[in-house]
């Protein structure tokens, strides 16, 4: 549970995708989400599918991790497939059994749309499976740096994000401790009518707020005494470096985009 909270869905492995710069991964996924909508026939969808599976293979993440991420959505994908299968009434009749009639257009649309949905989820999962949340934060900070020009506090936002990431596990521990303390005094968190259970949250939340403010105070003092003065001139412990593989991956995506534009109908 604790590890899960620190790393999100990150699965450590030794692969090209793991070693890529988080910035290029973020750009890659963002562009992929855009170009998925270019596909509109068998060939283009086929290409996208091949590309996605190539990425999964490159990431070296065991299939079962990808599957656990997909499980909750799978039902939704199948549901959309059937919805289109039964409700779209265009094109030739392919199949008739009693009151069920399946039309060509319905089958086509159903498969394409569930496939698109499926590919989107797979690709965004690849990002979170191969990148730690802290890397994503660093990458976002660096990518959004131009927004500093319009006075948007990018560095501050990234700092707050890393602080909250850092304190999620501590908070879970704290919650657990408070819950045990309250249980020892007779509070029942797990049963009773819903109104009582909601009320039981209150003696949990208040100590949490107070202790997190105390902790904030301590951390702020510690940061100040170590000379923290904002983003300007800050040197970083984790340096981001854009390498050849990042350029290569983006070039590959650009090639894919070009082919998709040429092949779409």
């Amino acid at each position: 549970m604790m590890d899960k909270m620190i790393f999100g869905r990150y699965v450590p492995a030794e692969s090209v995708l793991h070693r890529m710069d988080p910035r290029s991964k973020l750009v890659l996924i963002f562009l992929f989400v855009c170009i998925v909508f270019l596909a509109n026939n068998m060939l283009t969808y086929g290409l996208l599918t091949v590309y996605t599976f190539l990425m999964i293979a490159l990431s070296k993440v065991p299939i079962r991790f990808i599957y656990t991420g997909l499980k909750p959505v799978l039902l939704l994908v199948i549901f959309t497939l059937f919805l289109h299968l039964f409700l779209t009434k265009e094109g030739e009749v392919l199949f008739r059994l009693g009151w069920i009639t399946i039309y060509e257009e319905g089958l086509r649309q159903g498969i394409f749309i569930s496939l698109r949905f499926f590919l989107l989820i797979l690709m965004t999962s690849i990002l979170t499976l191969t990148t730690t949340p802290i890397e994503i934060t660093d990458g976002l900070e660096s990518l959004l740096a131009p927004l500093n020009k319009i006075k948007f506090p990018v560095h501050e936002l990234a700092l707050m994000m890393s602080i909250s990431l850092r304190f999620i596990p501590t908070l879970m521990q704290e919650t657990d401790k408070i819950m045990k303390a309250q249980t020892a005094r007779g509070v029942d968190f797990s049963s009773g009518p819903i109104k009582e259970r909601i009320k039981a949250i209150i003696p949990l939340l208040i100590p949490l707020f107070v202790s997190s403010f105390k902790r904030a105070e301590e951390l702020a003092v510690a940061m100040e005494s170590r000379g923290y003065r904002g983003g300007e001139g800050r040197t970083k412990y984790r340096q981001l470096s854009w390498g050849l593989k990042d350029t290569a991956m983006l070039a590959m995506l650009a090639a894919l985009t070009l082919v998709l534009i040429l092949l779409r109908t």
Partner: protein
Amino acid sequence: MKKLNIKTMVAIGMLSSISYVLMLLNFPIPPFPQFLMIDFSDIPALIAALIFGPAAGILVELIKNILDYFMTGSATGVPVGHIANFAAGILFVLPTYYVYSKLKTKKGMTFGLVIGTMVMAVIMSVLNYLVILPAYTFFLNFPAMSAPEMRTMIVTGILPFNIIKGVIISFVFMLIFTRMRTWVEKQAVIKSAA
């Protein structure tokens, strides 16, 4: 936006993590569909707004949603639900904050929460009609809903859901606020002195 001091930034970070953890403990309420979930993640945002001002409330909502998108992922791959949650959050927190800052009493807070709930429910219904449901149709290809269909779904589903959500959150927040009011005010004073 004026420069935030370190204490404020750190405290906003902490409140965002409380908010994120509370977001993970979400639950559906029986008559409504699975994707409409209630959670208490707006409470830390409201406290942030009361102590550090409205911008802090917005930041807590923003960070919570970014964290959730990258840590838990989105069912659709595209963060439509997170954008909706962000919009709902600030639409609830800001009106409440402004009403309370004018009145500064316990009654004022109740009144503010009622206004917040109303504003959130009404504007979210409009946003659902114009943006969110069409976005789901576009990304997920849920069969496109016709305008009257969408209207019945909003009037019978989304509007009452948001009202109930607002009422439950307000109820819990009032219980917390009556106990923490002096503490919140003390923090706000310390903050303005720093």
